[in-house]
């Protein structure tokens, strides 16, 4: 069966520090991968999606970047965090031919 991992679970970082959040998927090949951010009391905002290795599409201009160095690895990064980067970050995957997205456990990021 497929599983999706994210780490760390929680992170407190100072403004201006770098960020690296990692997401890995097991049990499937060539998944579509997604990064979302959820602000308190809000829905999920799509940040990036990837349909293959090295293929990244950005949905909104921002302080973050994403990379997909391996088929089942998706990384969210920032060189310098802003206060507004605080939130709950969720990674998700789906199979191209199907529609359902499956979410990882998420990372709570607090930028102080």
């Amino acid at each position, binding site marked *: 069966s497929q599983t999706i991992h994210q780490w760390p679970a929680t992170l407190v970082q100072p403004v201006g520090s770098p960020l690296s959040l990692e997401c890995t998927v097991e049990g499937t090949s060539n998944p579509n991968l997604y990064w*979302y951010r959820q602000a308190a009391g809000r*829905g*999920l905002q799509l940040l990036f999606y990837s349909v293959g290795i090295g293929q990244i599409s950005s949905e909104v201009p921002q302080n973050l970047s994403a990379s997909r160095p391996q088929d089942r690895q998706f990384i969210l990064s920032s060189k310098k965090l802003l206060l507004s980067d605080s939130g709950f970050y969720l990674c998700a995957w789906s199979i191209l031919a199907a529609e359902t997205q499956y979410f990882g456990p998420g990372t709570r990021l607090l930028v102080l």
Partner: protein
Amino acid sequence: EDKVVQSPLSLVVHEGDTVTLNCSYEVTNFRSLLWYKQEKKAPTFLFMLTSSGIEKKSGRLSSILDKKELSSILNITATQTGDSAIYLCAVRRGSAGKSTFGDGTTLTVKP
């Protein structure tokens, strides 16, 4: 701009009540509408709807899509305290399956 609007934003009911949650959308290249339940952490999948008028059912939960009205409802009958959660509606669009989410409905079921 693609938009998904859920109503009500929050709802407080008592155990045994029946609730109806609404989701309306305006998106280009509609593929499907999905409902998720979010408790403490990651959303968990409830339903995927692609065709109008066909009800999907799972236990006390059911959902239906109306493509003419660009909307969907999620019904929960005989609510229990374990149904307390945020219910998210998402619309998938385009060939990459990008999703636009609503802000969710926070349901609180009191004993």
